[in-house]
């Protein structure tokens, strides 16, 4: 009997000793990790950095290679969502814009170069460097002009919006354009391209009933005034609040 007691005692001491060694004497050190193991906030920073680097060099292949290190990433959607989170949190606008541009570029469909597998370590020197991917951009210096301003009555919209579409001189959508919205008691801004499913040059802002807004592209000197939720006639004579659709085009 006493032998069993000693056996159990030894077992318990051994177990405790093993765990003490593993957790306290020689605890696990996180080294040699990959980016997909990063904590959520670091992961967001890393994605923002990928976007910033992409905007700097315009190398979409390299950006895809880096994003492939995150196998569970729903790229375009998550990047767009991250851009919106960053804007909402008041963080760097440039990074939000970069995320928006990268999300837009990725949503334009696959490119000719196949996406590398995740198991490949990033060795930037070996990444092929094609000519920068062609993506719609605004021509530097040319002004954006308001070309249309429409009242929209869409009962499917859950809230009244200011919808903005920005096109370049070649009628291509322009993502990453900053749009500033001002009202009596405050101001806000957003970027085009954060909802790539609605168009790369599309952006919107939710209006509050009874508030009048003025909107302006950051790259334009032309403000659009008197934007407010207007009344639309719904089915069964039940009115609802309507939206605005503004289209800007870059002068040739």
């Amino acid at each position: 009997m006493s032998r069993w007691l000693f056996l159990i005692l030894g077992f318990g001491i051994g177990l405790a000793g093993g765990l003490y060694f593993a957790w306290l004497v020689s605890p696990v050190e996180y080294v040699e990790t990959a980016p997909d193991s990063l904590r959520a906030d670091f992961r967001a920073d890393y994605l923002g950095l990928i976007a910033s680097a992409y905007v700097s060099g315009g190398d979409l292949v390299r950006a895809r290679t880096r994003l492939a290190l995150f196998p569970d990433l729903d790229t375009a959607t998550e990047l767009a969502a991250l851009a919106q989170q960053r804007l909402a949190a008041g963080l760097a606008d440039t990074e939000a814009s970069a995320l928006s541009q990268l999300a837009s570029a990725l949503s334009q469909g696959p490119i000719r170069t196949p996406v590398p597998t995740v198991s490949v370590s990033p060795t930037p020197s070996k990444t092929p460097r094609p000519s920068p991917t062609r993506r719609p951009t605004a021509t530097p210096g040319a002004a954006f002009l308001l070309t249309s301003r429409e009242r929209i009555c869409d009962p499917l919209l859950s809230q009244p919006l200011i919808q903005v579409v920005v096109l370049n001189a070649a009628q291509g959508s322009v993502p990453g354009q900053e749009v500033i919205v001002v009202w009596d008691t405050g101001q806000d801004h957003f970027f085009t391209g954060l909802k790539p499913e609605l168009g790369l040059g599309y952006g919107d802002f939710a209006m509050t009933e009874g508030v009048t807004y003025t909107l302006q592209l950051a790259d334009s000197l032309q403000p659009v005034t008197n934007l407010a939720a207007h009344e639309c006639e719904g089915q069964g004579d039940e009115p609802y609040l309507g939206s605005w659709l503004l289209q800007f085009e870059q002068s040739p």
Partner: protein
Amino acid sequence: MGPGSYVFERMQNKLAPLIFGLVFGALIAVAYGWLVRPVEYIDTSPDSLRVDFRTDYVLMVAESFASDQDLTLAQVRLAALGPQAPDEYVTQAIDYALEHSFSGADLERLNALAIVLRTLPQPGGIGPP
């Protein structure tokens, strides 16, 4: 008759089962830690990144800096890699880039960032009179 009894028959004192249990317990603990519930690398920070990923991280900072020239932002990003001075991380990245034949453009960007960082006053350094 179990294996334990067989062992006990050969044990002439009470220390033997204690040692046997101790070793057995330690083995179970290690097997549990390695096989049943191995370490999962989650929620890590950039300072634990493998050297190639770390180098690419620094390269991205350099690429971004080349475009926006925002040195403060570059320093903040490099600070995520650990407590060393930011220029040391860039130097390490340059060393790795040279060893692995990075492109000239990448090396130029890393160099440009390193040069700017080295011109900054070092913490604790003696300033000009």
